[in-house]
């Protein structure tokens, strides 16, 4: 390859990436989500999952949970860049604070008859999914679990007539007695 003719420095060496879960406490003001999502896109960071709702209504405070991947230095930059935003109170790397509890909820709709229908019911019960809706040809199941469990469940359901999926993304919390 020809050497790139540029007056910018070369890209830095590639380091291993890790998956991290960040909890971000923010003022729930207009545009705060756009600010955070925009920071990720503008600086070229990944968002694997993003969950947000107001958690303290009186104080108008929201908690945003973001799952991202990056090298250690990128994760550190993400944290610093987030903390630099005026409405951000603090950012906690839940992956670093120890094995955080992580859950997401998914709804899946499966359509089928005969063996497929029976197999779908069996799988749902094996995973401990709840049946939210049923017709003679379809089910809507709810499953809460880790991202891996949800992924596995969806993969299996694909084989037995999956037609629709809706997922919440990850909600997470550090283990132990300490509050954030």
């Amino acid at each position, binding site marked *: 390859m020809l050497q790139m003719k540029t007056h910018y*420095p070369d890209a830095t060496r590639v380091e291993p990436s890790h998956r991290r879960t960040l909890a971000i406490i923010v003022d729930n003001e207009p545009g705060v989500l756009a600010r955070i999502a925009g920071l990720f896109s503008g600086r070229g960071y990944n968002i694997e999952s993003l969950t947000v709702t107001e958690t303290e209504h009186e104080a108008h405070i929201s908690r945003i949970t973001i799952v991202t991947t990056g090298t250690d230095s990128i994760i550190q*930059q993400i944290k*610093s*860049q987030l*903390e*630099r935003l005026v409405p951000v109170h603090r950012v906690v790397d839940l992956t670093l604070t120890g094995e955080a509890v992580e859950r997401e909820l998914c709804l899946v709709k499966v359509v089928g008859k005969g063996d497929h229908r029976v197999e779908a019911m069996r799988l749902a019960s094996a995973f401990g999914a709840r049946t939210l809706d049923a017709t003679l040809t379809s089910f809507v199941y709810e499953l809460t679990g880790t991202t891996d469990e949800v992924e596995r469940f969806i993969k299996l359901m694909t084989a037995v007539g999956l037609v629709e999926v809706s997922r919440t993304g990850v909600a997470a919390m550090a283990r132990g007695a300490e509050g954030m």
Partner: protein
Amino acid sequence: MSEMMTGAEMVIRALQDQGVDHIFGYPGGAVLPIYDALFHQEKVRHVLVRHEQGAVHAAEGYARSSGKPGVVLVTSGPGATNAITGLADAMMDSIPLVCITGQVPTHLIGTDAFQECDTVGITRHCTKHNYLVKSIEDLPRVMHEAFYVAQNGRPGPVVVDLPKDIQFKTGSYVRPLSNQHKTYRPTVKGDIEHIRAAIELMANAKRPVFYTGGGVVNSGPHAATLLRELVRLTGFPITSTLMGLGAYPASDKQWLGMLGMHGTYEANLAMHECDVMINIGARFDDRITGRLDAFSPFSKRIHVDIDPSSINKTVKVDIPIVGDCAHVLEDMVRLWRQGAHQAEKVALKDWWGKIEGWRARNCLGFRNSTETIKPQYAIQRLYELTKDRETYITTEVGQHQMWAAQYFRFEEPNRWMTSGGHGTMGYGLPAAVGAQLAHPNALVIDIAGEASIQMMLQEMSTALQYNLPIKVFILNNEYMGMVRQWQELLHGGRYSQSYSESLPDFVKLAEAYGGVGIRCDNPGDLDAKILEMINVNRPVIFDCLVDKTENCFPMIPSGKAHNEMLLNDYLGETGADIGSVIDEKGKMLV
């Protein structure tokens, strides 16, 4: 005690309470109520620019030269979008600004109304923070918060987008509080243990260097005083980024000159060879570091920055200190004195010996001419003839900017206004307007190129309207010189679109605006003409016709490290004897 008034009146009252004396703006439909409120008072003086980008750059020049926040008032839609370049510029260079933009009435937001644009959406990425005010109750708080956020922590631009119906509504005005934001509290005091470790490292350094930046200037004149004290106490050499020039006096013997892509040989080699680097208020910009994996390979690094995201962003540091430069410098000076610390005298002497060796290469030397004006010579003469005055320099972007940084010598902070991070051509003329308003009796010169100047040329009209005797000193080489230089280096000298064709007659142009035009194409006349320019108490465009082919050296070429600098042909590649070079230069420059 709160007072009832309209939203538009609140804006003006808030500006008055924030101590604002000048605002830069351009009226339009969505800000007419504010312009009406302006009409009824005298305290806040409005400066009518000719383009909204000019308003923002003027506010930047005002802010950078005075240490106060700059204020901009523009209308919705095109008013706001025209201001974007200026906002992005202020964001990159950490200039405190408050920009008030008009917006269509709240009930029309989202309907693609006339002159509507999503101002908070568009400016989100190029401001430190922004607000869309949807209720009159929020307005006083938001106005004061905007000033607080713009100035505290790492400074930056803040946009307040104000729909027209809110400007008409009546509400109660509240005066500013001291701590205006409910949660935003940037750290200003550095961690004392880290500072202690830094002092320890400095005391044991054998080849130390101070590398300072715009953060010292932003931190205020006190920071510059403390920096001078610390540098003197330690006896260490000091270099600075483009944005930090003036924080340390260029006449001092410990000063190595600017570093980076067009920095001096001695500054860059000191950075490369040092064992302890003390970064104060600089951010390891790529124009400074060059090739990252070869950047200062032997050093332990101390980094003082108010913005935690600047630390370890591109260059790993050993001792990070998050805090305001003045606060941290104060602790550093105190701890250095308290511990009766002494620099490693013998090692430091050797280090200085090495530095003097690099200095002796005289990297800023150039072959002067009696036929054509060398751009470097023009800046040298401009400096010599203005150095005893209170002089403020602004620049555009390009070769002339680098020559100004290299050959104009700054003794005080806040005297040098340039677009560093964003590199905005067109910055200098409006910035000069702002600087002149902040310092009516000072000499304000925009060192420009013939290409850059045409990007914001209309602001000459502003200078005339307000009797601002700014001087535009154009180094006219008929090329976008820096583009041409890069085309020579990287693209085989194919000058694609970098020749400035159909140039206007700048002398006539100055006269057309009502100013004074001066042209000089002869080195022999230069001094007299510069003096003529200085002595005219009106706006001047000085068309200085310089050598068309001169390039800007020294230079760290693409993908190279600090110790692989390219020196002026005259010094490097022809292999001229250094001693004779200095003599020759000495002869010609007197």
